[in-house]
């Protein structure tokens, strides 16, 4: 799930105008770019950064939901949640592999995540406080992610587009899983209903912010759009998401925590009130409620696993030596 508007990419390039023009022609002709093809350095860097952020988001995204696997209130929910969190891990894996076709390694990317240099979707810096948060994440966060990710299946970079096709296919159950969970709460006891509303209250705005800054503030969008890494603007996608989600909330009998939410008869779209961008930037910069915990949890897993990875490599060397000796 979970791509977000790209944060802080450097898409400057120093190639000749002829080279850039020829490249742009291929892009405009909807040709896919493959790993060894000549490409502007800025294109490569933008992709490494974006795919890396996307992969990190999947991996860090395992943590907030993973927080409830051991407390899922029924065995059916436990299995579904475990399978979903596992999927996020898989999606991170596909994406790291896609980025690796551009000359970075998973290890380098992991180290950048752990050092705090690489960013990930800010939504995961919020804690999951109740079981209803699992429903809200599936419904809203995956719902927002799908809006972002479906156009990425047509991204100009072949390996990224192919990874996204796989991701989108697998993710089709995630949002349904979340919405169904919310439905069971909304139709449940008073306590369950209150839990569902509380989760919607807390996850609504962070989900709306997942699409990134307004188009007028988004400096890297134009180049990414021209290169067809990105196909729709942040605001277009946000608008689509809100318009799809409002009726779903109404069906649940839950209210969206935006007093300025209005239906525009002309465009047939729901329009949101002002977004607190100060909060967005605070969380992006690592001051979200659980930002430190998230990175720390990843560090612990990575460091605690070092001896296992070393042993696997050491054993592989021994196998090789023995095989050669036997031949």
């Amino acid at each position, binding site marked *: 799930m979970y791509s977000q508007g790209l944060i802080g990419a450097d898409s400057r390039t120093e190639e000749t105008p002829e080279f850039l023009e020829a490249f742009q022609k291929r892009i405009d002709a909807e040709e896919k770019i493959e790993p060894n093809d000549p490409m502007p350095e800025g294109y490569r860097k933008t992709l490494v950064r974006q795919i890396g952020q996307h992969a990190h988001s999947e*991996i860090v995204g*395992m*943590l907030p939901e*993973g927080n409830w*696997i*051991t*407390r*899922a*209130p*029924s*065995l*059916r*929910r*436990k*299995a579904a949640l*475990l*399978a979903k*969190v*596992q999927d996020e*891990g*898989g999606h*991170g*894996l596909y994406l*790291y592999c896609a980025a690796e076709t551009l000359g970075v390694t*998973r290890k380098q990317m992991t180290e950048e995540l752990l050092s705090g240099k690489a960013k990930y979707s800010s939504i995961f810096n919020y804690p999951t406080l109740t*079981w209803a948060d699992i429903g809200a994440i599936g419904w809203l966060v995956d719902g927002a992610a799908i809006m972002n990710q479906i156009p990425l299946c047509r991204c100009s970079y072949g390996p990224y587009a192919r990874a996204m096709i796989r991701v989108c296919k697998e993710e089709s159950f995630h949002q349904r899983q979340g919405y169904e*969970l919310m439905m*069971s*709460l909304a139709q*449940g*006891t008073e*306590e*369950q209903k209150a839990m569902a509303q509380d989760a919607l209250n807390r996850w609504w705005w962070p989900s709306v912010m997942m699409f990134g800054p307004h188009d007028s503030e988004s400096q890297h969008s134009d180049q990414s759009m021209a290169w067809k890494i990105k196909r729709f603007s942040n605001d277009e996608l946000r608008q689509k998401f809100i318009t799809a989600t409002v009726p779903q909330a109404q069906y649940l009998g839950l209210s969206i925590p935006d007093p300025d939410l209005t239906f525009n008869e002309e465009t047939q779209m729901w329009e949101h009130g002002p977004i607190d961008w100060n909060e967005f930037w605070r969380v992006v910069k690592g001051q979200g409620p659980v930002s430190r915990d998230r990175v720390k*949890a990843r560090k*612990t*897993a990575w460091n*605690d*696993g*070092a*001896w*296992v*990875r*070393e*042993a*696997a490599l*050491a*054993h592989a060397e*021994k196998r090789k030596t023995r095989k050669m000796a036997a031949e």
Partner: protein
Amino acid sequence: MALPDALLELADDHLVLGHRLSEWCGHAPMLEEDLAMPNMALDLIGTARSLYTRAGELEGKGRTEDDLAYFRGERDYRNILLVERPNNDFAQTMLRQLYFAAFMEPYWQAALDSTDDVVRGVAGKAVKEVAYHIRHAGEWVIRLGDGTEESAERMQEAVLDLHPYTGELFDEGSVEGEGALPSRAAMHGAWEATMKDIFAQALLDWPEELGQMRGGRTGQHGEQLGHMLAEMQSLARAHPGAVW
């Protein structure tokens, strides 16, 4: 002991071990393992669900899989001690998995001839799942046992820590061997053969004399199970009667 109770024992083994594995999710030593462990956990939880449901049916008191999983306390759980052992490190987790799978594989093989339709169905599915668990956990035990000095030490320590809990795998209840469920004791030869083969490749010593720990089948658990169940059951118990 009646068949529903025997099925509960088996179901508890699977749920507790599946739950333990699920605790790793998002924290594995490498990303590939973050996918492998949930695969095994989902196999085990799936088996537990079928067995709980069957136990509930045969018991005839209208208890569902969730009633049995979430509304019995640690004194009522009947899993063996091995599966409730904490994850500790990856060496212990993989060895625990191997000990259990190496027992379940011949067990499910034998259960393919069960007189109970549901047990036969579960066995048909589970026998393939645990065969893969043996391979996956076994390959890791081999790599860690014959990897670095540190990994070998950790693996050897895992053997000392966990081997004493393996004897309980073979303790017979009263319905085993009567047709619905196979004899547990009869699995010992196959289990030991699998284990010794892997231990040899992993350069691990087979411990001959380690005192055996028992008690899970009579509800005499270690201290950790209570914590695990407290966590697992907390939400369900806070809202009795709620539908999720």
